[in-house]
């Protein structure tokens, strides 16, 4: 029954944070300011170690095979053949067909298996099929599901469809954690990224994630900052901590440190754990390892000494 006979319900007070808006220039200026932090010595070692522990080592190619995925899983468990003190990565992220291979290799290692799903990367399939796909990957043992939102629905204003689909996927995830990929490059600006972030969190996302890595552009520092601010507002309003995953385009240790500094200074130390922060990357790890060695040995390094998997 509507509160006012003949009327309709107005959200007099928003249950969540206000959607609000984002000023692009100021957001980018803040991101650039934080990117200018000079992280040296022990503080850099901490960051590099953290970057590895928060890394979702990723392969998402049509040519992926069990052999390729097995090798990647091995690297994720022990990233540095020369140094056992280097921690394992957080997860290995693969296509659904490769989940059994990854599960088999990673069992007992503490490294999670993440699977993309829901008609990745476009999301342009019927909801029922997406839900079914998620059921499959969870049944195969995936610990984490990286779903994509339906950008077609979002951009045409059918926010309800986007929301309902995330809810449906979340329901079948069970114990698996749900990362919701916004594919920020396709949304058309920071206001939309903020709106999509809030929508995904409202629908139950455990993480929100920038990109598939398959679009024209991927994560950027201002985009992550925009999403972190949404996460912070949700935490303020509900007490819930939603995780952040930046993915795509992060190839150097320097970039990784910049992303971590931004998380540190926006959300605080509490988010600096693989439980709440991930870096999705395919070629970042070796650069981080090289930097670790440089820091420890005082010598510049060569890629010849780091394995390509």
């Amino acid at each position, binding site marked *: 029954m509507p509160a006012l006979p003949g009327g309709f319900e107005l959200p007099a007070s928003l249950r969540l944070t206000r959607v*609000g*808006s*984002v*000023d692009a*220039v*100021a*957001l980018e*200026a*803040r991101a650039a300011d934080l990117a*200018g*932090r*000079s*992280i*040296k*010595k*022990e*503080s*850099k070692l*901490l*960051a590099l170690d*953290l970057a590895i*522990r928060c890394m979702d080592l990723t392969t998402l190619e049509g040519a992926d095979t069990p052999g390729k995925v097995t090798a990647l899983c091995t690297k994720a468990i022990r990233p540095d053949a020369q140094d056992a003190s280097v921690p394992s990565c957080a997860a290995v992220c693969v296509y659904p067909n490769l989940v059994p291979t990854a599960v088999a290799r990673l069992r007992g290692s*503490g490294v*999670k298996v993440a699977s993309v799903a829901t008609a990745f990367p476009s999301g342009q399939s019927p909801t029922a099929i997406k839900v079914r796909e998620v059921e499959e990957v969870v049944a195969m043992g995936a*610990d984490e599901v990286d779903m994509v939102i339906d950008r077609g629905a979002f951009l045409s204003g059918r926010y309800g469809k986007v929301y309902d689909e995330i809810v449906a996927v979340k329901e079948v995830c069970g*114990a698996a*954690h749900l990362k919701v990929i916004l594919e920020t490059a396709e949304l058309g600006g920071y206001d939309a990224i903020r709106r999509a972030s809030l929508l995904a969190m409202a629908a139950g996302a455990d993480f929100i994630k920038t990109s598939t890595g398959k679009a024209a552009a991927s994560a950027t520092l201002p985009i992550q900052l925009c999403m972190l*601010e949404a996460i912070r507002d949700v935490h*303020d309003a509900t007490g819930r901590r939603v995780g952040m995953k930046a993915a795509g385009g992060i190839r150097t240790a320097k970039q990784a440190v910049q992303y971590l500094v931004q998380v*540190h*200074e926006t959300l605080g*130390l*509490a*988010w*600096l*754990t*693989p*439980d*709440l922060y991930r870096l999705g990357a395919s070629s970042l790890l070796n650069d981080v390892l090289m930097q670790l060695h440089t820091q420890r040995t005082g010598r510049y390094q060569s890629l010849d000494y780091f394995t390509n998997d």
Partner: protein
Amino acid sequence: MTDIVPAPAAWEYAPAPESRAVVTIAPAYGLYIGGEWVEPAAGERFATISPASEEQLAEIAQGGEEDVDRAVRAARAAFPGWAALPGAERAKYLFRIARLLQERAREFAVLESLDGGKPIKESRDVDVPLAAAHFFYYAGWADKLEYAFPGRPQPRPLGVAGQIIPWNFPLLMLAWKVAPALATGNTVVLKPAESTPLTALLFCDVLRQAGLPAGVVNVVTGDGRTGAALVAHPGVDKIAFTGSTEVGKSIQRAVAGSGKRLTLELGGKGANIVFDDAALDQAVEGIVTGITFNQGHVCCAGSRLLVQESVAEQLIAKLRRRMEKLRVGDPLDKNTDIGAINSAEQLARIEELVQSGRDEGATIWQPACRLPEKGFWYPPTVFTEVAQSHRIAQEEIFGPVLSVLTFRTPDEAVEKANNTPYGLSAGVWTEKGSRILWMAQRLRAGVVWANTYNRFDPTSPFGGYKESGYGREGGRHGLAAYLSLEEAGVGGGEA
């Protein structure tokens, strides 16, 4: 996840100091007059110190009346030649200076931070590049002055410009003053601030490298007495002053009846006005920039936050959290957000006004932050429950101290914002375009930043309304202060 991986207990950033090796500071400096270093006539000197460590950096000459006279005579002697130089040639000197500043940018940045206490990231990313940009901008005007003012085809320089600059942006204010004066064919006697003379003295070496003719720019260091002597000197045709309103008024009195041209860039109590529809996180950035940029030692600082009551609680919570992240400390550390307070005297003034805020019943908040033991420091400070009548809402504090007031309607915001003798700057934060323009029209201030704050550019005229002074610096308008402009019309010759 099933297993919780603990976050690190702390992530302290290791010190990342910019190297001091790039600068060489002499034990003592003379005065730069007629292209030479000369001893002050009375032989008097004072120390300039680093406000971050209180270490003495150098002994600075106290210019007396005799020295000022000597400098004015040097400038007067250089004037005919400099004014007669084709504009294109003057331009090339200015371009040279701009380039030399860029080449020696690191040196200037480190020296500025050492002597004045501002964070290296600001001197490196703002002060020095903007100073170079000012010279570059006005260089281009030097041979185009007849295009600048329609109906006034034959602009002429005034003669000798006496320029007195403040301690908050020593090199940048030098550039704001010297660049347009030289571009228009005037010669200069510059008096840097007592507590921050080093970059102006280093600038003299740039002039040497640029081959600027002797006497075109003269630098006479000293305290207020030196400035007063410059203002009083009959051989000066124009006075340009940036500093406090109190001193500005005394200068205006002093030049009364002398026929000297005068421009004043004085104090402010800028209102930063946040509406409930603003992009809040970015507004917070603007508020923080507005009050902590250069430790709040900024005449156009957004020292009054006017926030719409419906969003005040949320905004202030965000503001406090953001301020907790500010890193106060060594100005030379690349991660420092807030450096040292410029002088013991300024620190005492900030402390006195903050105490008045407490006494008058406003609520004070400061983040927990460790301040270094030596040197002059003040943590970022936010006063809430501030009334319009409190001293902290009326007087310029010139430190990182923000006074928060609330408003209910746009009319009330305008009324409160304008309710001050000052009129230098204002900020407006709202997503609604028509409201921005409505506000911008009504705010009695020389600069209105909408959805941004504390932006500066050589092309953009800057200056105040009311007791914030008169005249503009920057842009085409900045030329007018240094030119005699005759009009073709009736009575035009008398300008």
